[in-house]
Structure formats: C-alpha cells, structure tokens
C-alpha cells in the first residue's frame, strides 16, 4: 500500500488517552533490571530493604506492551495509528534511534505509572536514518504517577524503515 503521508501528518499534535502501566513500580522488575544492566546480584531482600524509588531508566519499561494477551488491544491511539500506517506502506521495521529524557521526580516503589504519548513530528519525506532509509517519528511521552504528579517527559525518535541497512561488522 502506498504511504498516505497526509494521514500520518494529520496525526501530528494528537495525543493518546492516559494509559496505566501494567504493573506498579515493583521490586522484582527493578531487581531483574539491575541484575542485567548493572550486574547487581543482590537478593530481593536487600532490594526490599534499601529501594525507595525505581531507576529512572525503567519508566519506559513499564509502558511496554505484553508479550501475549488473551485480548489483544487494537492500535487505536494516534502514535499506534501512525506506526501502523507506515508499517502498512512497507516501513515494517521500527526502532528507537534517540531518546531525550527529563525527570521531574523519582517514581517510588508501589506507585503506578500512567502515561500518554503525543506524535510531535514526522519527517517530511524519506530520510537516511541510523538503520536505513525511511521515516522518522518523534513521540513525546508524558509520565505521571497515580495522583497525576508529573514524573518525566521523554521524546523518543523512532525510525521506520523497509529494510535495515546499517553496516555491521559481519
């Protein structure tokens, strides 16, 4: 299907509904993350004793869609629709290529994150991205806790390409 760039551009400036993270900020996710990223091998008992808030880099983790769900969610939010339009036009591989993050306050263990996503920009045409030729989408994430207190704002630049052409050493 040819790309309807006007349909993608029409989504710029549109923001999703507020979506709740699947889980609260929790010790096992923090511990697993620290184990893999920081090679921190302490037991959950140590984490339970000393962890007050989540490492900031985990915020995006709690927005990730599940691996499987008995009732899969249709892509209805503006950013999901923009990605879907690009995918349907053959730009099937999506990858985050840049991330800007501002943190207003830490997310405490036990708090539940909510977030909304705004399509803030789309490249006017095909561009050379870090992973090949395609389109760039800028997605603006706003994170808040369950009481509406702002936790973080992030801009994720996403490349959608037909084929990954980045050079590898192989």
């Amino acid at each position, binding site marked *: 299907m040819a790309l309807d760039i006007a349909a993608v551009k029409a989504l710029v400036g549109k923001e999703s509904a507020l979506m709740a993270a*699947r*889980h609260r900020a*929790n*010790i*096992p996710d923090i*511990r697993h993350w620290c184990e893999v990223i920081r*090679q921190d091998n302490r*037991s959950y008992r140590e984490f339970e004793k000393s962890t007050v808030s989540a490492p900031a880099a985990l915020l995006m983790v709690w927005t990730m869609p599940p*691996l*499987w769900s008995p009732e899969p969610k249709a892509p209805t939010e503006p950013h999901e629709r923009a990605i879907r339009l690009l995918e349907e036009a053959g730009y099937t591989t999506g990858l985050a290529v840049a991330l800007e993050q501002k943190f207003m306050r830490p997310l405490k263990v036990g708090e539940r994150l909510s977030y909304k996503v705004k399509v803030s920009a789309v490249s006017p045409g095909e561009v050379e991205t870090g992973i090949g030729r395609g389109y760039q989408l800028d997605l603006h994430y706003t994170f808040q806790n369950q009481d509406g207190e702002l936790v973080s704002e992030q801009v994720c630049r996403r490349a959608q390409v037909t084929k990954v052409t980045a050079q590898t050493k192989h």
Partner: protein
Amino acid sequence: MANKFGVLPFNSPVEPTMDYSKIAPLIGVQSPRHLPHDRVTVEDVDRWCQVMRDTNPLYTDEEYARQSPHGGLLAPSGMVHVFALGTMKAAIDQFVHGKCEFPDDPNVKLNTVVEEEGYTGVMATAQRQQHFRRLRVGDEIHWTLGIARLSDYDHLTRQGVGRKYQMLYQFFNQNDELLCNQTFDVLVYRAPMSTRRLYAG
C-alpha cells in the same frame, strides 16, 4: 568395555569406568536450605502466564482470586522451581566461568567428579513434581537439594555413553510448610569423540 564388535548392548552393565568411591559420600545428603532471589510476585506470575498463555483467573485476576476459597492470588504450581534458579550473573559464572554459587552442594561436587571422569555433556531427561500445597503470591520459597542416586554403570544412550543421576529437590514456604517434592533426572555423558576413543579403541 566393548565386546569384540566394539559396541555395547543397550543398558548393559560394563566394567566400572569411574571411581565410584568419590561419589558414594554425596548420595542421600541434602544441601543446606537456600533462599530464593525473588519472592513469588504478581509480576513473575504474569511473565509465566504470558509465556504459557495461561488465563487461569486464580493467577491473573486479583478480584476473582480474593473471592475464591484461596482468598488471594496463587502462582502456578509448576513455578515452584523457578525461584530456586540463580540469577543471570550466577548462571554466567557457572556455565561460562565454571564458578558455582553454592560450591558445597552435593550436586555441584558430583558434577565436578563426573566432569573430571570425562562425562562432559549434561542433559535433563525427566522430572516429577508432587505438589502438597498451593503457591501463593508473596511466598518466599526455600529449598534444599540432594542426589538421590547415580547409576553405578554406564548406559549407552542417543547422546553417547553416560550415567544417570536423580536429584531430589524439596521446596518449603516461609512457614516451613512443604510445598513440593521434585525429582529431576539428569544424564551426564561422554562427548561422542571421547566415547569412541574409550570404547572403540
């Protein structure tokens, strides 16, 4: 040893190819109680259910579970062993660098002996779990393990010449209640080249 055709009949006893006296003291001894790396949590139960595609509401629906006779979320019984496995770092230390988290456990000592004797391949072949009590979200699972038995002669298997041993795991919750007895059968085998060298001359 091999017969004149250079092959062994399946499962036939042969002359001992390893020193069993190093093994004998390790049989029937349980390790000290170990603590898990994670409590049983909704997040870990959710991961399991997504992979297994399990929709049992006792595991996934807090409200349903609260109103059930259990009074709260459970974890699938098969997860009992999950919390006894080491962290990623522990696994890399063990499987890449050969450094074990609990070097004094009987299975670790056994593995050292059988590896020295040339049985370098390891494979789990069977498992039995007897469940006595449900796992609850929030539980802290303690466990012990030991070697129940090791075959005192070689078996000819698809993988090569090997020995079978059986581990016994016992899982307890934080109230010292027995949750599950689990046996775990492991085949250790000589990599094919050394098998050929040993048995076909």
